[in-house]
């Protein structure tokens, strides 16, 4: 093939920047200078805006005679709190009352996250089911709970369901005994006695041994290929240790705390209020709807070839999900799941409308009793920020571990 004539013609020089030619442009046109200058200027403006905001609060507080210190936290709170898992008395300080609120929030958030994940995964898988009825029910659940404001849902559960249960004197009785009424759920609960120590020690030893056995046997199965029933074995170890502990204490490790109907209410046993129940159920169903969609997105993100190959290998549904689909889907699911968990924690602040004394509710009561709005809101924000940052930190670490390592 003949060479083209254009090969012997010097090409036109391409338009080049003066910096590429080796000449520095004037600084007001130099991109590197402009870039740095813009960043410095924005940083300076942000600091200025922040300083102005803080100064505004300080000047306004001075003008109106408001104090901005945190010393008021040591004063006695004076107000009662409806329910708390740690002992509280109105003579305790504001700081301790605040702490009660934090514990209540963590309790609702922890249990809520657990159940929301379970329910959400279940509903998400149901949505993808090939059974027409199951998938339609899942769709109905998801669409209903996603499109109704959470506050409306909470009020529906509280005013419409839990306070409409029968009166205390006519409680629903289940074997246990478990009493269900509009005052809440009362059930018999084991309480520790003075002789429980040997049982607790052997239970602790049993848990540690079970974990070790589980890990060792599983490693053994992966290296040798022989079936070692690591699940059953570790469970057996745990049961043996618990049994030994029970035998040692002669069966006196626990004492049944049975609720007894007094003048107004039951006394004794484990008590869960309708406020807590309504908040938990409302939060769990609401967040589960969103988590279901996240799970569905994750599963659909796994390429269809994986599903077909797994079927070709003869894996059944649970093996398919557990070994092939979910490990790959989790990479897509975790980041939006973190957002849903944080939403659940923050949404728990709506408990103020149904009377559950969590952090925000106790904070607002403190503002009204102590009069320091700015400080209390700063504290509330700091606590929510701390909870959210810790949650997202832990989950992001897990996310990084399961990420695909690409070239």
């Amino acid at each position, binding site marked *: 093939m003949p060479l083209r004539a254009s090969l012997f013609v010097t090409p036109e020089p391409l338009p080049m920047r003066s910096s590429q030619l080796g000449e520095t442009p004037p600084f007001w046109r130099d991109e590197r200078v402009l870039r740095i200058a*813009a960043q410095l200027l924005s940083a300076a403006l942000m600091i200025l805006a922040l300083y102005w905001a803080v100064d505004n609060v300080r000047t306004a507080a001075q003008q109106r005679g408001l104090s901005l210190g945190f010393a008021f936290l040591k004063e006695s709170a004076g107000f009662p709190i409806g329910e708390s898992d740690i002992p509280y008395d109105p003579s305790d300080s504001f700081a301790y009352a605040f702490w009660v609120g934090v514990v209540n929030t963590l309790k609702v958030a922890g249990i809520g996250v657990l159940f929301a994940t379970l329910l959400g995964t279940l509903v998400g898988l149901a949505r993808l089911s090939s059974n027409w009825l199951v998938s339609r029910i899942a769709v109905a659940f998801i669409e209903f709970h996603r499109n109704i404001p959470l506050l409306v849902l909470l009020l529906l559960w509280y005013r419409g369901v839990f306070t409409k249960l029968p009166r205390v004197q006519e409680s629903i009785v289940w074997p246990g005994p478990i009493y269900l009424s509009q005052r809440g759920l009362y059930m018999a609960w084991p309480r520790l006695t003075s002789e429980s120590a040997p049982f607790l020690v052997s239970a602790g030893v049993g848990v540690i041994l079970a974990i070790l056995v589980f890990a060792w046997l599983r490693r053994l199965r992966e290296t040798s290929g022989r079936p070692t029933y690591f699940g059953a074995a570790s469970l057996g170890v745990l049961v043996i240790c618990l049994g030994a502990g029970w035998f040692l204490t002669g069966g006196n490790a626990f004492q049944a705390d049975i609720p007894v109907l007094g003048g107004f209410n039951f006394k004794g046993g484990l008590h869960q209020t309708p406020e807590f129940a309504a908040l938990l159920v409302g939060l769990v169903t609401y967040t589960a709807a969103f988590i279901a969609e996240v799970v569905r997105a994750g599963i659909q993100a796994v390429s269809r070839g994986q599903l077909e190959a797994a079927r070709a290998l003869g894996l059944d549904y649970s093996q398919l999900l557990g070994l092939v689909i979910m490990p790959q889907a989790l990479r897509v699911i975790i980041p939006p799941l973190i957002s849903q968990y944080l939403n659940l924690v923050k949404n728990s602040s709506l408990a*103020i409308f149904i009377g559950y004394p969590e952090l925000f509710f106790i904070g607002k009561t403190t503002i009204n009793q102590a009069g320091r709005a700015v400080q209390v809101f700063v504290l509330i924000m700091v606590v929510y920020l701390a909870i959210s940052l810790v949650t997202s930190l832990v989950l992001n670490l897990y996310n990084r571990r399961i990420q695909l390592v690409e070239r």
Partner: protein
Amino acid sequence: MSRKFIPVFVLLIILAMVMAACGGQKAATPAASSGDSGVAQEPVIQTVEVVKTVVVTVEVPAAGAEQPAAPPAPTGYGAIVQRIKDRGKLICGGRTDLAGFGVLDANGRNVGFDIDLCRAIAAALLDDPEAVEVVAVSAAERGPALQNGEVDILSRNATWTSSRDAQWGNFTWIWFYDGQGFMVPAASGITSIEQLDGATICVTSGTTTELNLADAFRQRNLEFTPVTFEDTNTVYGTYQEGRCDAVTSDKSQLAALRSGFADPTAHTILDVTISKEPLTPAVPAGDDQWFDIVKVVIWGLINAEELGVTQANVADMGSSANIQVRRLLGTEGEWGQADLGLPVDAIAKAIQAVGNYGEIYDRHIGPDGLNIPRGPNSLWTEGGLIYAPSLQ
């Protein structure tokens, strides 16, 4: 192409932020524009001056000759009054959901025992009892609303306590003497507080009610479980459902809300009073002139009932034989209207708009309304606690 525009965008954003910052600064400190540096330099002295001036102002009417030598007004004196006059209406923090005290009538107009005070003040200061905007504030919001000056006056059956006086603002003059009580279903047969041992009690959060309940039960070594809500309606709704054995609040509020129940006769208010609840209107701190104006209007309405001036006869009483009446209504003498920036017939206008204290009481919570007996709210001449200094 787009890269060339980045510096232009940055410049525009910087300009916008600068304008927002400058504009915001001017709006945030209107009253202290001249005194801004003064406030920042000597805050402690300003606080002392306010305390001093309260004492001086009360004594000025008695020694009018000292006026040329009076100390200069502190920053904030008259600021709220000027704001009200410029705005043309009074912003009254009140209730819209408590029968008798602050509620909306069938036409959507705010009426009530507390609202009428705001109308009286508007009539006295602005010559128009309708120049009132009632802002509903919840029990939790009323403190901050007053601290920030979002409302000019809080007429919302708030109890006067020392800590609230220190934190929220200035409490003016007791408008209604009340006490805290309990309401139980009549069928329960409870008659005393000791019978409520172990009960579940519904209460509104962020109120003195909550604190008094805890104190009363602790004092008597009784136990109870509180169920608290921020919204009063939820409290009483939940009580009616049976979730609580009793509900506690000021007795006037219990009576008012019971009147709205499906069956008011099925509930009794116990004959137990566990606290003093002097319900008092409050104003934001810092403006002594406004503080004095509100007090003087309340005194005017109480003195009018004492002297027999009513809404019907106020037009004629201007020429009454009683010197005190003529002075009250402004047809003779002075009681400090000029110092306070009020027209001479301010009290006459207020009475014309809403009547005297007794008429306001009867209209909303007397025989024509909730039918709460006057009891401690009778005039001092009839054995009650309603007493006001003379306007002279």
